């Protein structure tokens, strides 16, 4: 008769405890899922709250992708005008469907309310500084890359740009189905929302189901705990149990023992070491990367003033950019083309005069010339060959693609990482500027014959080969 008791106890120990543990873990996992999801919703909700009652409508509209945001024009002229403005101002950093310097803009009108967008585009840093959590997140996510303010754009212009983006987003909606998997095209928000939309269950339902599941699990947990305590009590009342059985019924967890156990210590050390190695490696990768390097220059020359305000073309001073490897730091005689007459009294201009030995009163040059020692901002290692003419003249790239919003820099800083990964990435993504260049005719023909659906990128014509840059 008593022979069955051990089985019963075993049942208790072998099934219920593991079941409990399993359930506990399961619930943890679900909670984790739920949390990621709720962060998404919370972020939306949070900003919605901050945005005030007026934006609530837009926030809820976010769940229905087809609907346009209020105030965004949909007329063809507006979209066309928006396209012009977009191409002139935004393409340096943004694309609709892919992440370039800044996030992909597909569906941005659905992600964000219009007033927020207007504010952000006008001056993103104001929004970031105001502590707007979405903006701060975005700013951090993109390596604190400053989106230049577009104060020159009117509200209507921005709206037309948004209209253009919205129409492009809708156009892209069908192909997006296929593209959704590649995961490149978002600023982090779209994946959750977009993915849910594609799956046919809205995120809110998903949350409700999850919460329901968790509640069920917790109930099961409670029931099981109850069963255990009832059964333990029942067994403890029995007197025919030997010492061993009793011990196993009243087992208590010895935390001290767990903490001092070898596996536990091992796991802790492993985690610690992994983190240390990761931090160390990250640190090593940043050696020599001088992104943001902004040295003080001998003469306080402002690109913001010359290239930004007065819109002097870059090539006026950087004469070599279309024809040679180096873009050329302008020689002082180029400065003198204007500054022989302009701002002659400025102490900074006086420095040029001192270098070129010019006497502004007599308008004569002397022979005591001293070169200006600018501090190099962009330093590539000697082992890499980079040619400006190839990229600017042949490739047709804008200066800003690599040098960033140079027309807004009072003091020039290194905008891009200038790491090999950065170069390679661009070579992978950039389409060769082959149109009208007979050099590429045959290549283009071959490419279209073999691979008609994809653009001919630099990488596809050997742009990743070692000796294109290293020799």
């Amino acid at each position, binding site marked *: 008769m008593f022979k069955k008791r051990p089985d019963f106890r075993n049942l208790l120990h072998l099934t219920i405890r593991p079941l409990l543990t399993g359930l506990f873990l399961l619930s943890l996992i679900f909670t984790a899922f739920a949390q990621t999801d709720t962060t998404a919703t919370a972020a939306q909700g949070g900003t919605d709250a901050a945005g005030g009652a007026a934006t609530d409508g837009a926030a809820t509209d976010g769940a229905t992708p087809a609907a346009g945001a209020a105030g965004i024009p949909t007329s063809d002229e507006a979209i066309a005008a928006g396209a012009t403005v977009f191409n002139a101002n935004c393409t340096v950093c943004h694309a609709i469907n892919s992440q370039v310097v800044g996030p992909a803009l597909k569906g941005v009108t659905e992600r964000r309310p219009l007033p927020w967008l207007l504010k952000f585009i006008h001056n993103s840093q104001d929004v970031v500084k105001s502590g707007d959590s979405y903006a701060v997140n975005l700013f951090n996510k993109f390596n604190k890359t400053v989106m230049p303010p577009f104060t020159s754009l009117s509200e209507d212009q921005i709206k037309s740009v948004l209209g253009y983006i919205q129409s492009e987003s809708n156009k892209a909606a069908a192909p997006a189905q296929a593209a959704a998997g590649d995961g490149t095209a978002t600023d982090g928000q779209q994946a959750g929302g977009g993915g849910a939309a594609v799956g046919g269950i809205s995120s809110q339902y998903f949350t409700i189901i999850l919460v329901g599941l968790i509640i069920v699990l917790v109930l099961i947990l409670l029931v099981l705990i109850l069963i255990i305590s009832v059964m333990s009590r029942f067994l403890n009342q029995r007197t025919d149990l030997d010492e061993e059985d009793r011990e196993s019924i009243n087992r208590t967890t010895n935390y001290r023992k767990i903490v001092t156990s070898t596996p536990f210590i091992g796991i802790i050390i492993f985690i610690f070491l992994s983190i240390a190695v990761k931090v160390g490696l990250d640190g090593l990768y940043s050696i020599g990367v001088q992104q943001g390097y902004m040295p003080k220059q001998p003469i306080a020359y402002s690109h913001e003033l010359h290239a930004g305000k007065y819109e002097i073309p870059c090539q006026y001073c950087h004469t070599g950019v279309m024809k040679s490897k180096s873009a050329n730091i302008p020689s002082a005689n180029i400065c003198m083309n204007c500054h022989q007459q302009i701002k002659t009294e400025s102490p900074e201009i006086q420095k040029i005069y001192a270098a070129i030995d010019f006497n502004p009163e007599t308008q004569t040059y002397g022979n005591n010339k001293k070169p200006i020692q600018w*501090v190099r901002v962009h330093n590539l290692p000697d082992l890499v060959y980079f040619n400006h003419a190839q990229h600017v003249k042949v490739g047709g790239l804008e200066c800003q693609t690599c040098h960033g919003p140079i027309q807004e820099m009072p003091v020039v800083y290194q905008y891009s990482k200038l790491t090999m990964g950065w170069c390679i990435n661009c070579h992978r993504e950039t389409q060769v500027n082959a149109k009208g260049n007979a050099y590429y005719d045959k*290549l283009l023909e071959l490419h279209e014959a073999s691979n008609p659906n994809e653009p001919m990128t630099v990488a596809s014509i050997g742009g990743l*080969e070692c000796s294109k840059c290293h020799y």
Partner: protein
Amino acid sequence: MKNNKRYWKGIEELQNDPELVKRADREFSELLPIKDNGKGDSRRDFLKLMGFGISAATLAACEAPIRKAIPYIVKPVDVDPTIPNYYASTYIDGGDYCSIVVKTREGRPIKINGNDFSQVTYGGTNAQVQASVLSLYDKQRLEGPVAKGKAVSWDDLDQTISQQLRGAGGRIAVVSYTVLSPSTQAAIGEFTSAYAGAKHVMYDPQPADGILAANKSMFGKAVLPSYDFSKADVIVSFGADFLGTWISPITYAKQYSKTRKVSKDKKTMSRHYQFESNLSLTGANADYRAGIRASQEGLVLGQLYNLISAKTGGSNANFSKIATVPHLNKAAGDLLSARGKSLVVSGSNDPAVQMLVNQINQLLGNYGQTLDMDRPSYFRRGSSTAMENLIKDMQAGRVGAVIFYNCNPAYDFFAGNQLQDAMSKVKVKISTADKIDETTLLADYIAPDHHYLESWNDASPRQGSFSLAQPAIMPIFDTRQAQSTLLTWAGSPETDYYDYLSGRWRQSLFSSQSVEKDFDRFWDKALYDGALENTGVSLLETASGEIAYANTNVPVDATSLAGTINSAYKADNVGVELVLYQKIGIGSGRQANNPWLQEMPDPITKACWDNYLTIPQSMGNEMDIETKEGFTGMVNLTINGQTHKLPVVVQPGQAPGTVGLALGYGRTKAGKVADKLGVNAYPMVGKVNGNFAFFNASDVKVENADESYKIAQTQTHETYMGRESIIQDTVLAEYKEDPKAGRFEFKVETYEGKEDPEDVSLWHGHKYPNHHWTMAIDLTSCIGCSACTVSCQVENNVAVVGKAEVVNRREMHWLRIDRYYSSDAAEDLDAMEIASANPEVTFQPMLCQHCNNAPCETVCPVLATTHSTEGLNQMTYNRCIGTRYCANNCPYKVRRFNWFKYHDNEQFADVNVAMNTDLGKMVLNPDVTVRARGVMEKCSFCIQRIQLGKLEAKKQGRRPDDDDVNTACAEACPTDAILFGDRNNPDSAISKLLNDEQEGRAYHVLQELRVMPNVYYLTKIRNKDQEETNA
């Protein structure tokens, strides 16, 4: 038949030296250089260094150094940073001449190419011209004028010297090498006419007294004829190394190569006989070559004269009898059947011998055809006799002042050792040398001249041909053009040499032409082209005046000639004679301080950084000289009562009874690179008929010194283990019948029958959609001159490693020239001696073959060497970790490993000057990385030029053509043996050539390995008769 021919690269290989065999299968002959500073670093030191290194690297990484960008203050209009500018100019070094184009970057000359507009050098260059750009950045150059050991200002110097010259008393002499420049000649003329009794004396380290005297006697003009080897079907040369060092080798090599090119449509080539003592570069290229004693050259020529005159109606003369020289009868027969289309030349300095040569050429009707006396050339105008007389005058105290215009007679004149004594009798001694040399050391005043790349000048290498030299850089130091200096001291109204030069051109050359109306346009065009041809103007002849070119009068008739020759040349084969020669790289020794030339292996011996005695195998055996891999013996050479201890090189092809020694070594005051390297052979010169001869047959003794010597020879390095598909050659007669004659075609046995190795491969192969860079090297055209080796070194910043490291087989040349001897198989020792007596020679430039199935690529653990979509085997230095697997796996042994940091390293500062001083670094090509220690490097097909050429084409929106891309080696080649281009471009020269030759002469070295190189070789064809191939 063909299979019993055997190729060997050195005596060691022929003898199967056990040391060589042991090393042959190793890629790296030495183990890791653990003790490279001699102190013996221990493992503990290594760990210490490691520890320090890591912490230092971490610290260093925290703060990047601040780099400055310093633009021009006023940018010159035509200088754009990073865009090279090219200036046509002229290389003049005494009588050595080359019309050149100088490549400058940011105002610094960094590379010299040939000028295609020149009708004298036809766009060719040689190793010395290529390397001369480094001498511009020689740290040993003088930084300003010097008076009695103290730096002074130019004004002070001018004042002192003007006074001194006026008060000198006695004659004033201006001493120079041959002056090729009419304007310089005129400037010297202004000086000599300003001082009463002043005279200009020219001499040459490699004089042509013999030719000049013979021509003066025969034609009344002491000039060199203009030779035209391209018109000669039969060339017979007696000791004239016209492809390497004789008079104007670039000109002759270009002309020679034109007659030697064969193709589908031209199956003829000239036939070349060479009779000489040392195996010269020219002899190595001859179809038939025979070794003769230099002391019998006159008699051999006498024999030839009699053979020719017997058939052409000349008068026979009675020359002393000597044993019949092989091939001489055949040569005479060929000459006779090619009358008016043949050429006989001799390197002798004896007027009697040269007169005999003239007579032979006259009998053959070659004047006006292959020799032009109406448009003579001016490469050699110096007179050894005049120089000897000057030294006598100096010794007698008849000379009051002497000015050495950029010459160094104390070293490179045959009687230069008397100069020191003679100079003590001269009151005013002035030199215009740009660095301290043996002669300048004896001078009181130094008025340093510009380097030729900093100078204005003109040159007239040949009557009617002119070229301009223009500065390619601002003067680096406080130097002044020597012509200006002379004009200043002459009190001339025009002291600026540029104005003087252009003024003279306006007067003479501009006024004698009618094409250009405006002088500035005429001048600009001449300056742009660099060369002005066929002007019909002669500016040099009159200036030379009445100079005695020989100590004896030269008889014109054959009988008296025979008398003169019989008295001076010995018929007996007794004794040892020393034959002096110039090396391709070092030449007369003027550029001896140039490490690129010192490190360039001699094309024949493959030894560098050394002067050694070349001896025939028979002599080596007699003296029991032991030559082992890397080691050789020493001998005592006794000559003129002086004994010199010298290393020997047993030289196949060295005529029995002769030993060879190079001039240009044993400098005492050349600079850190050349000082105390070898012995000075100039004083060892002999005399024949009272004139300097390039040999000495009187009382020469060679004895074994019983010492071992480490010699830096590169040849037996990297052997091919006797495989047969490396050199493929044939004779013209067979080629005419079968364009594939001589080809070794390897076939793979498969179940489907025999197939080409290329068709049986595990690899999928590469696709080359864009470009397919390919090179073809014509072994028939390649003369082994090594201009390509130096050109590659300049272009690609290849380090110089110095003698000790070459001994360790760590030379860095990306392009080497393998020299193979071939002879019939020799199995026993006796037969071997016959084999090496006079072998055939084949040169094979060997560089990275850019294999399509590259063995190196598959073994690199870090993907540092990869294949490009343009057919290039790319080497990425920054990825290389130095395992050297690739070099181990390379069947061509063309990968070079940086065993040391050669730049900015005290240990190599003396030899690798281009990477160790701020001045030297100015010569580096900024487009090519200077490699660090521990990485592999190799030929890149001049990828920087490919990229640049492509970019130029892209900028203009077109495909690149042959003019856009060329490698440095192909560009430098004086015989157009190397052709480079895009195989995918049907219009490129390489496509056309290979389409023709694919089923003909083109082959891959080691085809059986199926590595499918992108470098093709075209079989070597010798113009021999068929029946003699087995002889």
